[in-house]
């Protein structure tokens, strides 16, 4: 089949009959089609056939509800410490026991999860947004400008990511919002490189050439044509970026460089646990709940990312 996302729709071929006033009007007419929407719908159809991915999606919905709705049902004090309860084992009053300053572990898991999920989502979206625009413009402009912009990306990518994130955390003593930017500020580089690669092949397509021929602006070609057609790569990258961001935040939290107390995240909870098990006592409830929460969340995002990649690649094969 020769259909490509902007072309096969017969109603869109006869641009000659459209009221032609300005290049923008033509572009609007060209844009108006169901291109990216049908692309997404077909992607979803393939995705929905993947049982593992659907189960992962359901699990993620559950985790989100657990973290954000849970505290409204299961009330715990996550502000004041209670040393009488410190390190108490699981019981009917505290289903998952208490941590070293007496916070209820189940409630802590919810509060920590809020931070992990919020930062993970937001950092991934910021990073993918910046990376997509940078990569698309760089690839579209081409020539020495592209070459220089990509050297900046090379430079950033050759700095070991975890080291620079640690340094930035030391410098800024992050709260949740700053944390999002610390994680995103180097993560977008990898996205930029990928999207730029995609752009290099997209910019030679007829419909992108057409925009230039009829005098459309470069920014329009990038934002309205190249980015929507690279949407598969972008969505898949976002999914993996969320998993990566949650892991990085957990790592920083574990090192004690994450969000500042009384806020917490799953990695921060683990760091408290390690101290106590290394002293030789079996406080298993300090480590299993947050550890399993991290693994479960990241595995779900990885499965979903894989399924999305499959579904978008199937679309490519069908073309």
């Amino acid at each position, binding site marked *: 089949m020769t259909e490509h996302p902007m072309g096969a729709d017969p109603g869109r071929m006869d641009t000659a009959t459209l009221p032609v006033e300005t290049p923008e009007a033509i572009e609007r007419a060209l844009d108006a089609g169901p291109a990216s929407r049908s692309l997404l719908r077909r992607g979803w159809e393939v995705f929905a056939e993947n049982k593992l991915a659907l189960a992962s999606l359901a699990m993620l919905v559950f985790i989100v509800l657990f973290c954000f709705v849970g505290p409204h049902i299961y009330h715990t004090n996550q502000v004041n410490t209670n040393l009488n309860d410190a390190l108490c084992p699981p019981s009917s009053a505290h289903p998952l026991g208490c941590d070293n300053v007496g916070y209820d572990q189940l409630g802590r898991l919810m509060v920590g999860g809020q931070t992990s999920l919020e930062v993970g989502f937001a950092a991934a979206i910021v990073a993918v947004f910046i990376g997509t625009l940078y990569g698309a413009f760089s690839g579209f402009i081409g020539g020495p400008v592209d070459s220089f912009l990509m*050297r*900046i990306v*090379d*430079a*950033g990518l*050759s*700095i*070991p*990511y*975890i*080291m*620079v994130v*640690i*340094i930035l*955390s*030391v*410098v800024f003593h992050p709260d949740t919002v700053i944390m999002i930017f610390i994680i995103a500020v180097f993560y977008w580089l990898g996205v930029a490189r990928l999207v730029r690669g995609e752009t290099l092949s997209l910019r030679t397509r007829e419909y992108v050439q057409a925009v230039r021929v009829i005098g459309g602006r470069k920014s329009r070609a990038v934002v309205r044509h190249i980015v929507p057609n690279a949407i598969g790569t972008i969505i898949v990258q976002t999914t993996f970026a969320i*998993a990566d961001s949650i*892991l990085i935040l*957990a*790592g920083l939290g*574990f*090192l*004690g*460089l994450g969000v500042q107390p009384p806020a917490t995240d799953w*990695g921060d909870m*683990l760091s408290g*646990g*390690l101290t106590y*098990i*290394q002293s*030789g*006592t*079996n406080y*298993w409830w300090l*480590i299993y709940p947050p*550890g399993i929460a*991290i*693994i479960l969340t*990241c*595995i779900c995002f*990885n*499965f979903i990312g894989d399924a999305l990649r499959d579904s978008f690649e199937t679309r490519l094969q069908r073309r």
Partner: protein
Amino acid sequence: MTGFLIRRTLQALLVVFLVTVFTLALVHLFPGGPIRSLLGPRATPQQVAYYNRLYGFDQPFYVQYIKWVGQLLHGNLGFSTKLNQSVTSLIAQDLPKTIILVLLGTVVSLVFGIPLGLYQAVKRYTTGDYILTGISFLGYATPTFFVGILLVEWFSIDIHLFPPFAPQGTTVGQILADPRALVLPVAAYAFVLYALWSRYMRSSVMDNLVQDYVRTARAKGASERRVLWGHVFRNSLMSIVTLLGLSLPTLVAGAIFIEVVFNYPGMGLAFYNAALNVDYQVLLGFTLIATLATILGNLLADVSYAVLDPRVRYN
């Protein structure tokens, strides 16, 4: 080829320039500037100004940059006032220990990852493949430090088989003298890497199995055994070696978490302690060295690729 070499080296030099500018700019990001973090919050403005002049931080950025690069070229990465030790000597002391950890972990993970990845590709979509795929996914999604924590919980708290701390000591000899204490850190590190190699090996072998040269070899009557070991395996191994070369500096950085969990006295632990003490000379020195090693590794990988594989076209 010469043209390519020159172009590629110039590119690498441009990247080095950008990285060094960025690193020096980071110095000025530290709260209140580098001198404030050196003297502490109770230093008077006069003292800060004095030391700023003494260290040349009051000069224009480009002057600072030229001086600083001159120092770097003489092997001077800065001096840690917190440890009363030069960063270079700190690296000389800790890097060998980290290399031991990385080397052992990498070897162990390759010993499992390569054969099992090959097995998965040959027996793809069987129960064995699915189980191993599940294990690799687990390896991807589990934070390195949590693997370490679990091993401590299982093997030193539940059953007292291995100590929960890595061997201590300042020399490589002291580290190697206590192999029992090395088991858990190496195992934790190897598990995370295993996921990487086995996934890569699996997809690489599967890609190679459908290549024309495999069909040619079969058409010429080569046994399946010979096709697998003589052709596919060797080609897949090539790409693993490249991947290994490319990720070596990343591996060193990745050891940070293992070293912190087990209190292993290597560069990662030193970096972590520097982060807790806001010892910016150590932080930046270590980062710069790791970065330069990465750039060099990328350059060498690209060049060796161009030498070894004539299909690679560069423009």
